[in-house]
């Protein structure tokens, strides 16, 4: 640890590489370019166009707003703009993976959130003596949601739950750190808080 190379590896492992979407976009762009090139060459050879000749395509573009079926065009344009927005979002968003770095380990360790969640749930369940499905934990980037459903007659309050979950998480030393939100649900009427 404390090694620049390992820091780099951990940082890369925590973020999405955006490889899949980039490959899809590049493939579509390449297909579009090949198609446009084919139409140009067919036009030069004087052959029949596959779909539309370059001249017809530019004329269609010029007359686009006045075309009948302009709602279809508006819808298509809106879809294209929306896809563009999504791609820009993917390009600039941090793209954090659902993982955390385990600060408590001697080596550079990255853990899936699911592993942390199940371990915390197990610990809460054992320490508060709950049934097998008595504790549900969800781990986010900066928060841990701990929901506890004790058996009827078994009183658990949320501060206990929080204390146990925080103790477990303190052992792991997650980075980025997570804040615990504890809830106790009663089994008789579902969704009742505290």
């Amino acid at each position, binding site marked *: 640890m404390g090694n620049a190379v*390992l820091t780099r590896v951990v940082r890369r492992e925590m973020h999405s590489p955006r490889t899949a979407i980039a490959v899809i976009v590049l493939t579509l762009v*390449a297909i579009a370019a090949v198609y446009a090139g084919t139409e140009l060459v067919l036009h030069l050879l004087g052959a029949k166009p596959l779909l539309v000749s370059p001249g017809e395509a530019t004329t269609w573009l010029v007359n686009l*707003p006045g075309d009948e079926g302009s*709602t279809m065009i508006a819808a298509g344009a809106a879809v294209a703009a929306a896809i*563009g927005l999504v791609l820009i979002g993917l390009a600039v968003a941090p793209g954090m993976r659902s993982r955390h770095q*385990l600060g408590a380990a001697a080596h550079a360790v990255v853990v899936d959130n699911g*592993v942390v969640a199940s371990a915390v749930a197990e610990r809460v369940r054992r320490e508060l003596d709950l049934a097998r499905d008595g504790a549900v934990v969800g781990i986010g980037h900066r928060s841990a949601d701990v929901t506890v459903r004790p058996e009827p007659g078994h009183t658990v309050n949320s501060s206990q739950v929080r204390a146990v979950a925080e103790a477990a998480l303190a052992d792991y030393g997650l980075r980025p750190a997570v804040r615990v939100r504890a809830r106790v649900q009663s089994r008789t009427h579902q969704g009742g808080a505290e």
Partner: protein
Amino acid sequence: MNATNRGVNRAVLLIIGLALLGAGGAALAAAVWPAAATRWETAMAGAQAWLTAAEASTRLHESTTVSWLVVGALALLLAIVVVAVVIVARLGGGRSTTVTREDAGEGPLGAVTIAHGFAADALADSLARHDEILASRVSAGRVRGENVLHVSVTPRQNVSPVEVAALVGTLIDNLELLTGKQTPAFVSIHSSVRSKLAAEQPRVR
């Protein structure tokens, strides 16, 4: 762990996203807003007229219909395809078959190379003996000119990640002791459907 250039991935998404947003936004405005529609039509008609004129004036020869403009457009399209293929082809990589290398004269022995297979076998064998580890994979990669060992493990559900990290850490330390050389090691602990099915159940209830 690979050597994919993520900046390129994001740049591709940004450029194509901006192009789509620009074209889609302009077409949408032209379709729903009359003022934008007239501007669209004059701009596009101007562009078309310019293209037609340029096409006619840049003919390679009086007798052909081939113009430099079309040749240039084809070259541009070819360049786009080539760039796309090159970016896709360069994805991934950075795997290494060497865990540590010691050149002659560095250590008490001569040149020593420890191949990835040896470390992988040693670690995977030890991990397979532990019941709480369902699956493990060991790979070596080159990051910034340094060999890095990557151990990825899938433990049973409900097993504390700290215990898993300590276990794998001990094995890595042992390997270092065995090879006599420090190798930067990176551990990733994964969850999977299989780990959920094979959850560690309490033995005494």
